[in-house]
């Protein structure tokens, strides 16, 4: 009996051994759980980002990787500085050259001593509110792009950080009155800024900027209309993209914010270049121009030389009350 039992045990043992030997090749061939798994480089190539699920409340952190910040970095540190530098320094250089060759555009017929209202108090208030905001926004914005290489080495980390902190607050909060100003500018001057045939002639004659030409113009000439549309369209773009950046994730994710920053900064530096020209022509560039936004009244001779058709309109509307208008043909001299 005992020998039979031993035989059974032996038989089982042999069977078991056989099984182990047979199964051995199968067990050395490991299961590869990564065969079907996601691959980092493949995901990046397909979508340029890797996204998944997170169990923490902040669902935005489900984006694991988004290497496109590299292109944005290149734009922010290299491309933008070139665009901004060329646009702003280029504009300043052009204006200096222009001022040195042409000088101030003088009132050819001198001052008449009589004035006409060009901008009402409200119009001037809107202009100066927008302009003040713009200058602060421009300086604080340029600080973000150019401050680190230009200003930081001069004043040191602490002072530069303190200044930049306040500049950022100013930039964020003054965006609101600036936006209101752009909207009001759009509404209050839209009537005079629709392009018409007079603008074509004005542009053909180069706005009379070279020589002593005075092409006729209504209340706003083609150059001023350009400034108007730069303010309206440029201001609209910087406001829209700026608010997108101020309220992250309300409108878009990181890619959208990178794009918004690109639009915001490029439009802004071109806007600054255009406004430098606007400031030039409104101050030292042209005699009698500043008064329009200063006191709101311009000399009749200034109006006749630069906005002859507007003066005619005004004279027609108000009648030849105190000043006999010069012949209309004076405009085409």
């Amino acid at each position, binding site marked *: 009996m005992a020998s039979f039992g031993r035989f059974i045990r032996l038989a089982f043992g042999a069977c078991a051994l056989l099984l182990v030997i047979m199964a051995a090749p199968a067990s050395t061939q*490991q299961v*590869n*759980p*990564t*065969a*079907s*798994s*996601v*691959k*980092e*480089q493949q995901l*990046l190539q397909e979508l340029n980002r*890797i*996204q*998944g*699920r*997170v*169990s*923490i409340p*902040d669902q*935005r*952190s*489900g*984006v*694991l*990787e*988004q*290497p496109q*910040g*590299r292109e*944005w*970095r290149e734009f*922010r*540190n290299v491309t933008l500085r070139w665009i901004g530098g060329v646009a702003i320094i280029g504009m300043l250089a052009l204006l200096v050259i222009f001022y040195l060759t042409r000088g101030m555009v003088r009132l050819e017929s001198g001052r008449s001593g009589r004035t006409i209202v060009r901008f009402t108090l409200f119009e001037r208030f809107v202009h100066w509110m927008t302009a003040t905001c713009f200058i602060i926004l421009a300086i604080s914005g340029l*600080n*973000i*792009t150019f*401050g*680190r290489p230009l200003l*930081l080495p001069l004043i040191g*980390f*602490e002072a*530069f*950080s303190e200044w*930049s*902190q306040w500049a*950022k*607050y100013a930039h*964020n*909060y003054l965006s609101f009155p600036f936006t209101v100003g752009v909207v009001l500018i759009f509404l209050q001057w839209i009537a005079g800024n629709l392009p018409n045939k007079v603008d074509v002639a004005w542009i053909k004659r180069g706005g009379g900027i070279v020589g002593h030409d005075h092409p006729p113009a209504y209340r706003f000439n083609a150059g001023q209309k350009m400034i108007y549309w730069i303010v309206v369209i440029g201001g609209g773009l910087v406001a829209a993209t700026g608010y997108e*950046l*101020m*309220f*992250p*994730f*309300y409108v878009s994710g*990181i890619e959208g*914010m*990178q794009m918004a*920053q690109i639009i915001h900064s490029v439009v802004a530096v071109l806007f600054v270049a255009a406004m430098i020209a606007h400031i030039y022509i409104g101050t030292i560039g042209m005699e009698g121009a500043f008064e329009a936004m200063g006191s709101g009244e311009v000399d009749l001779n200034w109006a006749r030389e630069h906005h002859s058709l507007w003066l005619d309109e005004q004279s027609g509307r108000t009648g030849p009350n105190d000043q006999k208008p010069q012949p209309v043909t004076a405009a085409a001299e």
Partner: protein
Amino acid sequence: MARMKFLCDADRCIECNACVTACKNEHEVPWGINRRRVVTINDGKPGERSISMACMHCTDAPCAAVCPVNCFYTTADGVVLHSKDLCIGCGYCFYACPFGAPQYPKVGNFGSRGKMDKCTYCAGGPEADGSKEEYEKYGANRLAEGKLPLCAEMCSTKSLLAGDGEIIAQIYKERVMKRGYGSGAWGWKTAYRETIES
């Protein structure tokens, strides 16, 4: 000097989120901010992978490059840190970061985001090592005490590795060799411009 790096062995990560919790607790990270999180890709599908991710302390860090006030610095150990005293909360580092590491305590509040917060590799900030000020702003400075980041130290499956890049890469390579598979060091190509062949 060592070049400190993180490496998440995605084939070992079980999405227990203990690293996330440990980090929050160790540094008393403000509400709403997670310096580390675990992302699960293809959740519930075959081939699903979980990866624990925080600041990778990149080589030539994009955050440092775009910062308008230059508040970032890299320590001798290759850890990317920043000064909350200099930070103006502009959000630029967060546009540039490939890993979504920079976060702000007040996101979406009129752009007054507050000072940026991110993983410090348990290395604190510019204040004196182990000082109260340092702890309040950046959390514990374990590195100064000769300890590695807590998230990796307490990882139950030893999926998350922290330490000198060469050494953790070697550990990972040995693992891959032994078990015969590995889905690679996630984020390394983006952060360090190198991968670990497996």
